[in-house]
């Protein structure tokens, strides 16, 4: 007797294991490594995060007081979050969204 028969028939009558994703958005698991945002109030443009980033996703222009962050380069490893002494990098639980263009997130400090 084929061993799979009972499993198949059982699956047929039980509810599918599918998460109807785009219609039902599941609650993200706490601690999910998502996109980062810079809290420009705290950031002192020390470039620690730029140095530690394995994929050059963060570019800091200290002269222009500007940070360019590319979610399309980011590995979502959060090494920058760990390395930031100022706690200026705020991790999110939402990962960068797909897009037609590789747009950068640009952070500018208000302080002039």
């Amino acid at each position, binding site marked *: 007797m084929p061993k799979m028969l009972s499993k198949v028939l059982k699956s047929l009558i039980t509810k*599918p*294991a*599918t*998460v*109807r*994703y*785009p219609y039902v958005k*599941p609650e993200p698991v706490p601690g999910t490594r998502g996109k980062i945002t810079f809290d420009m109030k705290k950031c002192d443009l020390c470039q620690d995060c730029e140095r530690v980033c*394995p*994929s*050059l*996703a963060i570019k800091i222009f200290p002269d222009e007081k500007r940070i360019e962050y*590319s*979610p*399309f*380069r*980011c*590995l*979502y*490893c959060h090494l920058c979050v760990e390395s930031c002494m100022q706690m200026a990098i705020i991790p999110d639980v939402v*990962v*960068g*969204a*797909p*897009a*037609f*263009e*590789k747009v950068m997130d640009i952070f500018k400090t208000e302080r002039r």
Partner: protein
Amino acid sequence: MDIMNKARVKSPWVLHFNCGSCNGCDIEILAALAPRFDVERFGIINIGNPKQADVLLVTGPANRRNFRVLKNLYDQMPETKVVIVVGSCGSTGGVFYNCPNVLGGVDKVVPVDVYVPGCAARPEQIIDGFILGLQKLAEKGKKKVEGR
């Protein structure tokens, strides 16, 4: 040709090409096909044959050896088609930016329509990417009709 466009959007067949990625995104693409995410809900089938595919799903950066393969596969896909790049390294080179054999993102070889970030991209993101890709597909289909 409204119905044609609707059908186009409803039935994207996928050609998946691993273009030098770490397998992370590839297994997530497969996971998207698996019961939990089940992209077949949108009519997506991993067809494995460029001649019948509408969506080229590329993972990983292009390198000096496989860019040719990628180009060839892209050429063998009939219009209308879109290219979705999954993963950070496919979009930009990502962690492999300074690897000597890596050319960079897939967009250096074939025109890319949708970029899906992440390392590895999650199935949810891949689904989101598909939704964008299908928008693009509909646009291209409309353009084709108007162009005639």
